[in-house]
């Protein structure tokens, strides 16, 4: 991008500056530490100059928003056209409790919904299962049957709002309920928009809500993708997630690399199913984290967009530009937030929101300042939502697209992260692909090593963490925490009992029998799932059919 002569001059100038003013200042006063690193451990130089990005080719490496390689964004007008979707992840107690929270959030200017299911639902157990004891409604909403789904979206028209559902191994079941509900509301499936997470690989890597062994669970994932591609064209069929990888301890580059590795595995699986890449790839979506180091995060997003575009074009031979676009949701970094001096978290989240805006995300959840204490209270979630609104409306970050392009540091780091991603993808390929790398624990161990390194840095004081290892103070125990009543368990159990007694037994049994039959063939399970949820089969009953056929999975733990 720069003239050779100009570079020569800069090089000479930099040498002079290094040996002159810098050396002189250092002699008088050393810098605060011998090496500066990002939170990911990447060394950071004193300054960056055109020398660091001498190889950058604007057309090839950056291009224009909405054009290959999408480094600058996936859409030509970005936030000048429309802000990112403001989508707070929420769910607790019964469907009714959560419905009230949704209505409140929509009233406050939230523009999309995001369902946090209770752990029993995520693990494919009903609320009255022995393993659900004590867990019902605790950290997500209890949804056992289509009846709960109806209450959850009561008064919310499914053609007016898009809904993201964090559901993985049982994704087909919850999507089935959502689609059946849309039908009941009279909304045709091609008007229904939203996302299911459906990313089972990262459950095995780092999130823990797996049910079935890798192969059969991937089959369900692909069934869902295939079904939606034919019948629910506006649905994001998967949300390939780096968020949880980062929360588990990875670096920024690892987050992007391992997510892309998962993305490659899903794409490969769909292609092996016989689907044309351009038929499903435009509906693959992603989910990332945003930590407090704004510049590193922006570089990560840009590098990820560029790398994914190349993967789709070169590895999978996609032709449709939409197949090459890395569209993603962001959640701010929960694990960066502290129980100590919780109000400080508002500042961290604001910076993370700013990074998300500068990085060009399509949607965002901001964490609440009480993140390390409990599920967000209404007051805390309101501040979190307002933080997004302030960044969108007041900061100016949304006025121009990819404003950090051309910043020597950010461009250099974008290159560096892209290189790191590529190194990882090559390594994983050499191991026999993502599934093999997971099975050998490679990805898990890389993440845990980073988590360990971070912890050691904090405990040695090498890295400052405000309120944890510096600027600490005595505080009274926090008050005003959100509490979920233990009684939800009984209420849900009673509801289930009634449902089981009152539903049309013959219809219910026929639907489950049919599901069992279909699941043993290569046929897509989705129609049978939808039929079963309409016949009021519960999440647990449906998941049990597959437990029977596919077995349960207990992955190796790599410590």
């Amino acid at each position, binding site marked *: 991008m720069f003239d050779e002569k100009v570079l020569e001059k800069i090089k000479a100038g930099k040498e002079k500056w290094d040996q002159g003013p810098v050396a002189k200042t250092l002699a008088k006063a050393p810098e605060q530490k011998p090496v500066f690193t990002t939170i990911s451990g990447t060394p950071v130089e004193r300054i960056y100059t055109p020398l660091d990005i001498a190889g950058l080719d604007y057309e090839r490496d950056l291009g224009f928003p909405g054009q290959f390689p999408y480094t600058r964004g996936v859409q030509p007008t970005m936030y000048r056209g429309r802000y990112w979707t403001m989508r707070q992840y929420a769910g607790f107690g019964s469907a009714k409790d959560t419905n009230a929270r949704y209505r409140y959030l929509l009233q406050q200017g939230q523009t999309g919904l995001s369902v946090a299911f209770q752990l029993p639902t995520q693990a494919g157990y009903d609320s009255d299962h022995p393993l659900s004891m004590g867990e019902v409604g605790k950290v997500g909403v209890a949804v056992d049957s289509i009846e709960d789904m109806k209450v959850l979206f009561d008064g919310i028209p499914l053609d007016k709002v898009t809904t993201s559902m964090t559901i993985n191994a049982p994704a087909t079941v919850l999507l089935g309920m959502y689609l059946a509900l849309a039908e009941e509301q009279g909304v045709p499936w091609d008007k229904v928009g939203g996302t299911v997470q459906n990313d089972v690989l990262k459950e095995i890597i780092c999130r823990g809500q797996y049910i079935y062994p890798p192969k059969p669970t991937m089959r369900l994932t692909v069934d869902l993708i295939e079904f939606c591609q034919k019948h629910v064209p506006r649905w994001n069929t998967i949300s390939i997630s780096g968020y949880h990888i980062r929360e588990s301890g990875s670096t920024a580059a690892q987050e992007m690399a391992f997510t892309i590795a998962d993305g490659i595995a899903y794409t490969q699986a769909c292609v092996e199913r016989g689907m044309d890449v351009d038929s499903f790839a435009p509906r693959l979506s992603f989910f990332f984290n945003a930590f407090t180091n704004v510049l590193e995060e922006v570089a990560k997003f840009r590098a990820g967009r560029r790398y994914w575009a190349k993967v789709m074009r070169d590895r999978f031979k996609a032709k449709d530009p939409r197949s090459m676009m890395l569209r993603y949701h962001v959640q701010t970094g929960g694990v960066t937030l502290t129980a100590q001096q919780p109000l400080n978290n508002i500042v961290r989240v604001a910076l993370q929101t700013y990074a998300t805006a500068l990085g060009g995300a399509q949607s965002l959840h901001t964490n609440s300042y009480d993140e390390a204490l409990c599920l967000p209270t209404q007051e805390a979630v309101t501040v979190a939502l307002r933080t997004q609104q302030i960044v969108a409306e007041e900061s100016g970050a949304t006025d121009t697209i990819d404003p950090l392009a051309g910043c020597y540091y950010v461009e250099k780091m974008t290159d560096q992260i892209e290189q790191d991603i590529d190194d990882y993808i090559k390594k994983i390929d050499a191991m*026999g692909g993502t599934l093999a790398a997971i099975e*050998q624990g490679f990805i898990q161990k890389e993440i845990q090593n980073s988590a360990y390194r971070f912890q050691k840095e904090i405990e040695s004081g090498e890295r400052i963490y405000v309120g944890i290892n510096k600027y600490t103070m005595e505080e009274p125990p926090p008050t005003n925490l959100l509490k979920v009543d233990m009684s939800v368990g009984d209420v849900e159990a009673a509801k289930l009992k009634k449902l089981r007694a009152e539903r049309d037994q013959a219809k219910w049994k026929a639907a489950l029998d049919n599901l069992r039959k279909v699941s043993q063939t290569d046929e897509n399970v989705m129609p049978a799932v939808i039929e079963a949820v309409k016949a009021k089969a519960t999440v647990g009953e449906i998941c049990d059919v597959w437990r029977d056929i596919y077995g349960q*999975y*207990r992955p*190796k733990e*790599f410590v």
Partner: protein
Amino acid sequence: MKRDYAKEILAGSPQAVARLISWLEDEDERAYSIMEELYPHTGRAYVIGITGSPGAGKSTLTDKLIRIMRKGGLTVGVVAVDPSSPFTGGALLGDRIRMSDHSTDPEVYIRSMATRGFLGGMAKATCDVVKVLDAFGKDIIIIETVGVGQDEVDIVGLADTTCVVLVPGLGDVIQSMKAGVMEIADVYVVNKADRDGADQLNMEVNARIEQDIHIKMSGWVPPVNKTIAVDNVGMQDLWESILKHRAFLEESGRLVEKRRKQTYQETLRMIHNELFRLIRDQLSEDGRLDRLVEEILERKRDPYSTMREILSEWLDSTPKYKEAL
């Protein structure tokens, strides 16, 4: 009141078993008299060794084998060995996780052990622990070794049937075939048969076995079983191979022979260990060993005569040591 551990163990107390095993691991004196009492009750269990490179699927196979054995009404003891860190002395014992499904089955007793510096793929006390579980009444005892390299093959000395687990695509197969690992197999398991290269590996192993038949002349041709342990595929066949090997050993009289050999080795080893321990402890107690080492280092003395000197001292003072026994 002094507890009678042997009695408790024979009466089925898992806690007494657990404590005795800890004492064995710690080389705690309290263990030995209990072991003496238990010994007459051993010799009934059938011992299966599962060995193979790290991550080959040993724990997953064990988990699935337990399931089959339990269906058949057999009770099971598992000893799962993981390495201790040579630097910190600590250990992460991770095999148990994969057997979680059986953790509340009272007829399955799973014990994790760290090697504590012992080489050979097992812990020093593993053979004692097998006896404890045997006396405890377990029908089958499975030993999962550390993920082994090439010469860590102590398992043969302990197991009636040794299963060697191989996986395709590790690239070290031919390598390990040259070394000892292959010779010890009574049953081969080609696990991860869902992976590319499983058939190739199968062929290589079979070819190798054919070669060996002429050398080994044992009358037993190790079968090769393909499994996909995670998906519970091929497990019944594997179990049948193990049973066949057991039948072979029993019918040919080789089981008795094998155990005679094991007992021979073990008796010698126990004498060796105990002698060693007594002398080591005595020498370390007053710092004499350190002083001797220093002197040897400075070439003020040599290790050969030192050894003779110490042994002769020891023989002279045997009555004193006798006390300790």
